[in-house]
């Protein structure tokens, strides 16, 4: 016959915040990379003002809609963080799905914009334009992958109000990439 001890030891907590801290440092690295590309773009543009974007025009409709999609995505992903912290799993899946749709819309609009601009790599601005916008495209695609992975793990029951770190980390990475797009939007699309 087993005897139940008078004092029950405290339950073992899952590890917390490591993923958030890791994502924070990765986001900083991504930001530094993106900022260095934007800096190269600005330096090159300042040196070649007379030939910069003389053969192509960049429409503003797509960049503005991309920005709107990303901001909506930020609202949706924050809704997912709120929902998972309250064990509202249905809402969390819906919010993560909406964020994924916004990311897909952004990626679709980027490729459409590239076709509309029709810039070639042989032009002076070509490599810099594609390096900056392509890197942003790649990071949003990564953020989409991160969100889908975390949604899949949440679906498997790994994330809940007790351990919401994965969803929060994906949201943090998303927000950083939205902020980085704001810099690209201003430097490349607005201040032509």
């Amino acid at each position, binding site marked *: 016959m087993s005897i139940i001890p008078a004092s029950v030891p405290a339950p073992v907590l899952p590890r917390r915040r490591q993923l958030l*801290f890791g994502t924070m440092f990765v*986001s900083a690295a991504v930001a530094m990379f993106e900022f260095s590309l934007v*800096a190269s773009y600005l330096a090159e543009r300042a040196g070649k003002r007379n030939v910069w974007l003389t053969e192509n025009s960049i429409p503003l409709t797509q960049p503005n809609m991309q920005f709107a999609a990303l901001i909506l995505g930020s609202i949706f992903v924050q809704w997912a963080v709120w929902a998972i912290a309250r064990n509202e799993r249905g809402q969390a899946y819906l919010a993560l799905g909406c964020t994924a749709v916004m990311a897909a819309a952004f990626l679709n609009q980027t490729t459409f914009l590239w076709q509309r601009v029709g810039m070639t790599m042989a032009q002076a601005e070509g490599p810099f334009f594609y390096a900056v916008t392509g890197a942003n495209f790649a990071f949003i695609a990564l953020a989409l992958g991160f969100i889908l992975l975390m949604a899949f793990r949440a679906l498997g029951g790994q994330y809940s109000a007790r351990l919401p770190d994965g969803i929060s980390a994906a949201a943090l990475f998303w927000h*950083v990439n939205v902020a980085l797009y704001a810099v690209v939007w201003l430097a490349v699309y607005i201040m032509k």
Partner: protein
Amino acid sequence: MFTRGSRLFFGLATASLLGAMLYGIITNGLQSGGVIETLTGKGAVDAVLGPLTLGYKGGVGDHIGFSLLLAFAVCSLAIGIGSSAFRDGDPEAIAELANLDAVPPVSEPNDLSA
């Protein structure tokens, strides 16, 4: 208020921000015919305002160096704020969140994605 870990990042942010401003003023002066000449001449206000307004009013000199120093300041500030918000991952703060008096043991990692 500020945790020990976050102070390092706030310090880095301050140093790189000051570095960016100085770098902007000096390289802008070098491109405009000399630092002393620029700072004591008619372009003194623009030479200082340029880096302070991130190039909106006046030049920032070397774009790449200025942008990288400024980016480093922004990233360090963000990490400092994050580190402070999560209390440096302090286990006591986690115990407080879990409504426990003592700090409970933490489960060991058993795979790469635990």
